[in-house]
Structures are given as structure tokens and as C-alpha cells.
């Protein structure tokens, strides 16, 4: 499987219909390929990720969460064709309208009670937007999402109610988060 994705990525999308057909495909493909082998060599603990099928630009990641005890969280990661450089804003604007950033889309497929994840599962993380740098990698993003579990960014929440509860009554917040996990992430 490793070799099959390798050849098709190098060939610039000969058979992958869903791939963006810009000239940068090959460059971004190579970069993603490299990140994949780095990730395989030195995977962060409690995280893993890999391409969905033979499409290098759509990945699935799994996080095993604390304090979301024993939860298994699945995330969709979509790479833009211009990865790792900032995309034209419009491309990302299709999703959110007014944000700019890496173009890297990270969406929870598992329901989670978290102040930085909106009700449809979109992750709102600083490094995916303004603080994005081409030097960041998918491993770093995974680590960031993982550390988001333990340290939510309560000052830039997408769900202010959860952030407020986190600051006001941490125990209650954790209890609710654990119940969400029990119901939706086991």
C-alpha cells in the first residue's frame, strides 16, 4: 500500500480523479509523503493517522483522549493542494467564509464536548489559522489537537458556554466531558 500511494503521488495524479489538478500537486504530494514516513518512524503517543484509501490528501486520524477517558476520537484531515503553503483564501472560504489559514481542515467525526470544536466537528485551532507556518507538520498538528484536550484555548472558544464552564467549574466541565465520551466516543 505504501508503494502504491508513493508511485501515484509522484506521477502527479494520473488516476486519482478527486485530486486537485494543479502543478503543485506533486510538490505537496511529496511533502505529505515525507510527513507520513516521519510520522511512521516517530509516532506521537496515543495518536495515529493515515491516508483514507489511496487518496493522499484525505487522512483519518485517531486520538485516544484524556480527560475524555477512554474515548476514541476519529478526525478527518484534508490537505489543500497547495500544502504546506497558505492557500488562496477563497479556497478555505468555501468552508468558513472569512477565516484564513493553513487550508488544512481538521474535523472531528466523533462528537466531543470541547470549547474549541464547533457543533459540526470543526476544530478551531490557532495553528491551523493565523499561526500556521509551513514548517509545521501533521505530527505537530496532531500533538496540538491532543494538547487541546488537556488545555483548551478558553480565550478563543467557538462554544463560549463550554469555555465559561471550564473556567468557572472545572469539575462539572470534566464530568460532562466524560459523559459525552461515554455516550458518543466509545
Amino acid at each position: 500500500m505504501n508503494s502504491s500511494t508513493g508511485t501515484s503521488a509522484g506521477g502527479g495524479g494520473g488516476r486519482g480523479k478527486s485530486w486537485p489538478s494543479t502543478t503543485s500537486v506533486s510538490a505537496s504530494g511529496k511533502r505529505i509523503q515525507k510527513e507520513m514516513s516521519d510520522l511512521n518512524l516517530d509516532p506521537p503517543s496515543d495518536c495515529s493517522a493515515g491516508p483514507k484509501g489511496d487518496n493522499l490528501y484525505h487522512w483519518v486520524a485517531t486520538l485516544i483522549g484524556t480527560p475524555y477517558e477512554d474515548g476514541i476520537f476519529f478526525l478527518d484531515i484534508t490537505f489543500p493542494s497547495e500544502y504546506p503553503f497558505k492557500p488562496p483564501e477563497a479556497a478555505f472560504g468555501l468552508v468558513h467564509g472569512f477565516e484564513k489559514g493553513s487550508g488544512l481542515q481538521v474535523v472531528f467525526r466523533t462528537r466531543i464536548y470541547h470549547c474549541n470544536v464547533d457543533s459540526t466537528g470543526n476544530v478551531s485551532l490557532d495553528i491551523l489559522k493565523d499561526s500556521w507556518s509551513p514548517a509545521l507538520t501533521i505530527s505537530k498538528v496532531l500533538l496540538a489537537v491532543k494538547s487541546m484536550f488537556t488545555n483548551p484555548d478558553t480565550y478563543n472558544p467557538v462554544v463560549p458556554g463550554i469555555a465559561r464552564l471550564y473556567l468557572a467549574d472545572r469539575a462539572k466541565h470534566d464530568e460532562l466531558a466524560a459523559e459525552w465520551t461515554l455516550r458518543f466516543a466509545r
Partner: protein
Amino acid sequence: MFRSNNVAARTFERQICTPSPGTSIQRARRFYENLVPSCTIYDVECPDHSFRKFTDDGQYLISFSRNHQDLIVYRPTWLSFSCKDEDCDTRDLPSKAKKFESFFTQLYCVQLASTSEFICKDFFIYIENNQFGLFATSTTQIHDAPAAGGAIQGIPYIEKITFHLLRLEDGVILDERVFHNDYVNLAHSMGVYLYDDLLAIVSLRYQTIHILQIRDSGNLVDVRAIGEFCSEDDELFLNSNPQVPVNHVGNGLQPNQSIPNSSFLSGIKQRLLSFIFRGIWAEETDQTLRIQCLKKKFYFHFQDYVDLIIWKVQFLDRHHLLIKFGSVDGGMSRNVDHHRAFFAVYNMETTKVVAFYQNSSEELYFLFEQFCDHFHATSKNSLSMNFISSHSNNIHALEQLRCNKNKSNIFPQFVKKMLASLPFSCQSQSPSPYFDQSLFRFDEKLISATDRHRQSTDHLIKFIARRQPYSLKFKIKPGPEAGSTDGRTKKISTFLFHPILPFALSVQQTLFLQPSVVNIHFRR
């Protein structure tokens, strides 16, 4: 030890010997070797109904009118007639006795379907404890239906499916459950399974397993719906803890739509995927190998797993469901050989997937071979169901299975073929002792305990004793006595065996809506 097969000798033996512990029922059932439905009344004059089946306690014969609107229920009675002549035992039956009415008394006729609906004639489930019957009516099926509101693309829909719960004693409709714009596989009761008082109804279109309870009072009560959510109060919980997205909702229009076109996995899929994930995770301890393994076995197939749909469900016990997952096109077609399918065991109480197998899994096959009866989950207090022959309780059936296994050249194909029968359909087997393979041998291509229509041949169906002297005990011949004049028309036969009495109906139909030929087989 030699035992006489003579009925008088057997009665005497019953009187003086105690059977080995736990075998008294088996011993009593041997009398069926002596009491067989060997007498046939051909082409009986009878009402033109489609006869569905005898209930498993033998109390009722269920039939539907030809226009599929009415339910007609009969009570089987034993033939009685008087005869003036002295040697009436050897004589032919008087013609007055050769009627349907001398074997059945009509209890009532109830209209179940309104004008635009039809009774699904393949669907009937009997709730033995309460003598309730579950029937289904539906409007016509619409193919190429656009998928809307969370429905699955590629599944047809039926505007209205109604399940009717009837008290069979007097035909009173106790309760109804309606499914709108949905699709439940009603053929051979495939989409519905009864265990004790619990009913599982599979909505193929909305990918939901509805668990209902049939109360003694005759009410159908919703217990839970498994699909989008797993626990009964998940949706309530979600709605009472709304996550308000700040960035794209400015119009205050959001509550009560917990499932907008979000990409969240459904509850059951999350459970399934996390079970598969955990399994692979635990397989490897080395972190680098583990991620390689996940990449190949899990992420690569992730979308395929997400695209699986629930196809069929059965109970294994009160808490566990055996769920078959497959592709959308595999779900609708009858030939499942080419489609990949998976089986999952799901615990409704803990909402966890307990086991997961592919349909080529040898492990599951060996479980099936050895513990087949555990898959035939029927109600606890249904005694007659304990005697349905299977390859795990009957040496002859096992021999047959081994023979088939050796005959098949490719073992993986054989496994797939065998596992295609899982999950079992509810109440699809006749408990008649004449299908007990420790008593009789018969050609399973022509007849078997499984409730199916079969293509009819002009051959006699022979039932041969399993014990010495292996003699022919009785014959069943569907269709007219003289055989059919036209050899070319395709004929379909159905056999309805009474669960207790030496009594059976054979119904032979030609495909051109002609009245069917009903034969009564009984012991004179």
C-alpha cells in the same frame, strides 16, 4: 439393544420402562414414526386463500385473501365422520369428509389493509406466550427514491408500512406501528426479529434498529432505537447540552437540529470503528509497527467501513444483537456471494460492539458449526423449538454438513455460503416432528423445515425412517393426483406442517394466478 417399532410394543414399553433421564420427550417423539400423515386427499375443495402457516403451537392456521386485504384465521380440527358400512376402515373416505371444512373451522376474517395497502403475505410472526400475531401491510414499493433527510441512497422506499398486533383468539387489533417513507425488508420476515417479548425492526432506509417490546396488555412500546444514537436518551442529552457555534449562527435559529449535515459518524458506526481500531491497536505493542498496521488495515479501509450499512439483525439473547453489515447494493440483491459482508455482535445495554467478523471468517464458521443452536435464538419457553434439527444437535445433519464441506473444493467459498444464512430469519423453521432428522430422512432439496417456496417436481417426496428397517414411512405429493398434464409450466410448492398432529397441507401454484391445488396429508 433391539427395540420393536411396532406401536403396540412401544406403548407397552412406555408403560414398563422409564426412559433414560432427560430423554422422555425424545422417547415420546419416536411414536411419530408410527403416526404419519400417509393418507392424502388430493385437490381438496377449499377457499381460494393463500395459506401462510400453522402457528407454532398448532392452534391456528393463518391465511390471507387473494386480494391481500383480509386475514382469515382457522382452527385446525381433527376429521370426524360417520359411516354406515361395517368395514369403514378399509373403505375410501366418504366424499362429504373430503372437504377443507372437515379439517378447519373458520374463526374470523379481519380486514387488515385499506384499499391502497396490501398484506405482505410472506410476513407473519407469532408471539406464542400471548397468542398474538404480528402482521404487516404496506403500500407499493417505490424504487429510485431520492434520499432525503438522512436516508440512504439506493434503498427503495415504501410510503407506509404498518405492523398490526392482533390477538389471534378473536382477531382484535391491539396495536399498530406505522413507518412512513421507510423501507423494512418484509419478505420472509427478514427485517423483523422476535425474541421473548422483544422485537427488532430494521429500517434499511434510515439505518436504525427499532427495539420494541410487546407488552402482555397488547401494546407495542418503543424501547430504543439503535443507529444514529446508541442509548435511548442520547438524543435528549445532546439537545439539552447544546453546543452553540458562534461563528456561523447569528440568527438564533439552531436548537432542535442536532443532526444538521454534520459529518459525525452514527452512534453504531462509532462503536464499530472504535472496536476495530482497538483490536488492531492491541494486536501490536511496538509503536512503529502498530501505526504501520493501522495504516494498512484500518485507515486504508476507513471509508469502506463508514459506507457499510446495517442489512439484517437477529437477537442472540435479550442483550445481544447479531448485526450483518454490507454494502448498499449487497443489501438489496439476493445474491450475496460477491459482496463483502461483516458480522458484528452488539450489546444493547453496554452499547458496545463485542465481536466483529468478516463473512469469510473461519473462526465464525467454526462457532457456527459447533454452536448453531445458539444462533437460533428463540424465546426461552418455547419447547417445540428445542427439537428443530440442526448440525449442532443432530448427528445426521452434521454428517450432511461434513459431506457438503468435503464436496466443496474451495473452503473459503463454503464458509461464505454457510455464513450467508446468518443472521437467521425469525420463525423460519417448522417445528414439525416429521422434519426431525433423527426420526426421518428426506431429500432436503425437495422439502425441509425451512419455510420456503420450492420449485415443484412431479417426484414423490419420501420420508424414510432413520432406524432399522429404514423403511419408507410416508410420501408427500403436491399437486393433482394424476400429476400435471403440462410439464413445462413452472410450479411452486409450499408445505405447511402442523407442529404436533400428523397433518400437513401442500399447496401447489402455477405462476399464472390460477387457483392453487391444495392437498391434505393426514393420518387416517
